[in-house]
């Protein structure tokens, strides 16, 4: 099969040989060069960030729970499991996830080392760690490396993400900075920023949760 890389690049170079008409190159420069100064506010202190994350969670219909330590987090998980009548959950190996799911009496499917997608599909929840939370947008940042693969956080109908206190970041620029620090040597094949449970407004612009992914998103902040 022929590949047209050179043909296309040739056309691109040919086109760009002529500079853009200065009359239309009229972008007005931003007042500063610091994205943080333009984007929505991210919160200066940890408490600001928690408050902001809570505000966005409310809007996005994320259930946001703050707890003092891992045993409290485990208690919250057990409570939700009982309330929703979970019979099985998907998990992955991560110290925080393990500490919080230790008390769960339901059967656990670990995605470590591969899993049967049909089995994961039957789980009531997927419980994952994450890379960061973003106060500016009420989002969870995760990757295949931090959250047990691609499907664990999207296939089961309830996604529970657990984060530690120091993982709550102010804004998206800091989130990308963190990802870069952590992974630039070997990027995972998948990273995502999750803002609320799966949603759609395709029918008369009326919000419906759980279009294809999780109907519920719970974020537990420990510490």
């Amino acid at each position, binding site marked *: 099969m022929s590949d047209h890389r050179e043909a296309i690049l040739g056309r691109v170079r040919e086109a760009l040989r002529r500079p*853009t008409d200065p009359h239309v190159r009229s972008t007005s420069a931003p007042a500063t060069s610091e994205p943080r100064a333009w984007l929505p506010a991210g919160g200066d202190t940890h408490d600001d960030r928690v408050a902001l994350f809570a505000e966005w969670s409310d809007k996005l219909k994320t259930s946001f729970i703050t707890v003092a330590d891992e045993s409290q987090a485990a208690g919250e998980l057990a409570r939700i499991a009982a309330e929703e009548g979970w019979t099985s959950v998907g998990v992955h190996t991560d110290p925080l996830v393990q500490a919080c799911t230790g008390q769960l009496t339901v059967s656990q499917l670990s995605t470590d080392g591969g899993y049967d997608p049909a089995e994961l599909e039957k789980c009531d929840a997927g419980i994952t760690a994450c890379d960061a939370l973003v106060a500016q*947008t009420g989002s969870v940042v995760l990757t295949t490396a931090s959250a047990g693969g691609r499907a664990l956080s999207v296939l089961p109908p309830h996604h529970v993400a657990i984060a530690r206190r120091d993982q709550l970041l102010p804004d998206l620029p800091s989130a990308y900075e963190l990802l870069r620090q952590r992974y630039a040597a070997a990027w995972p094949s998948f990273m995502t920023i999750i803002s609320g449970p799966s949603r759609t407004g395709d029918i008369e612009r009326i919000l419906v949760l759980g279009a*294809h992914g999780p109907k519920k998103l719970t974020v537990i902040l420990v510490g």
Partner: protein
Amino acid sequence: MSTPLEQFQHDAAQVAGDGDQRQFLRSSLSGYVTTRRGTQGRFQDYTSARAAAAEIKWNAIENLDKLLPQFADNLEARGVKVHWCRNGDDARKAILGVIHAHGAKSIVKSKCMTTEEIHLNELLENEGFEVVESDLGEFIVQLRGEAPYHFVFPAMHLKRGAINKLFKEKLKSADTDDPEQLTMIAREVLRQKYLDADVGISGANFGVAETGMISITENEGNARLTTAMPKVHIAVMGIEKVIPKLDDLALLLPLLATAGTGQHLTGYNSQLGGPRQAGEVDGPEEMHVVLLDNHRTRLLADQEQRDALRCIRCGACLNVCPIFKNVGGHTYGTTYQGPIGSVITPHLRGLSSWKHLSDSSSLCGACTETCPVQIDLHHHLLRNRRNSAQKQGGVLESLQMRIFSFVMRRPWLYGLGGKLGRIGHVLSRPIQGTKLDPLYKWRATRDFPDPAAKTFKEQWKERRR
């Protein structure tokens, strides 16, 4: 077969005449404007954010010759096969090739306008594959055998009753008018498809050159499932989607969401760079990126209009456009509707058959004002008009212009014309609106107000006194 122009005029008259539908369109679009305003207000400096985004995209377009190879090389280094495609034919062949190589049968797709551009579904269905659109709106229009109505909200023209009827007919589902239940019906159907499909096809909102990743923006999670479960993932992307750095997303993603749907960030913003890597537990075994030119380089060669390649397909210009509000999305007959569609379609598909889109504009500038990357849309519409006039201005048109300039350069003649016009206006009153009226075509659908009591020139004279 009718020409695009005839089809446009016919459909426009029909949609504009349907009061109910117009009311429905208007109210959903005005809801959007309100939410968007709120979200925009959360930015500390929205104007600067727009300017910076425009600058990022400018640089990307002007450095495509460097960014594209960087993007492709980085993808390849991570085990992605990159297919460079000059046109729809190349792309269709490349995609079919991958599908055949895997002996695939069923295909699940997440929303991708670039594949609409190359009529991929039609081809795959003709070849006997099962192709299912997984975005709810796309799923609905696919079941109806229709093109998307709006490139961000594909099924925005349909009320729940119509969707209920469609689902009952095609999916044998229970009777319900509840959007939630309707959504759940689609969810059930599609769940199994993700697990069963051999190939997942997606689009890409951005291609990050620095890291060799594509970025996909969505709300439903269907793109995540489409790119996680099947063993092959094919992403189809126009060459103009490349941006230099990963960190640019920190600005572009919130802007895209704000302008596009009025959200501060859409539900899922995912970056994908490669198939499943060593040590990962899931993900496709193979990833392909189909890089499509399809006349984008022709637009790039236009020094004046190449900035239309900055478009991030947020759809905001459609939502505020008075023409779109009145004629609706299907009338355009294009992959990309609204102002941006009217600007780029003549470049992608030929000026002579598509210039009428640039005539159908109020030139109000609402699109330009709203565009998050500051594309000068309404002036581009004017430029398209100018280009088409230069290329093929009719004899009649040039005669009209000559008479016009003759009159305009002679104040006495202009004044006389005004007077005659006034007299004519009064004299023609009895026949106004009837077929005898020489201005019938105009007046049938528009008001022709009485002229002001005094002309500008008369007022000027009085003031000078």
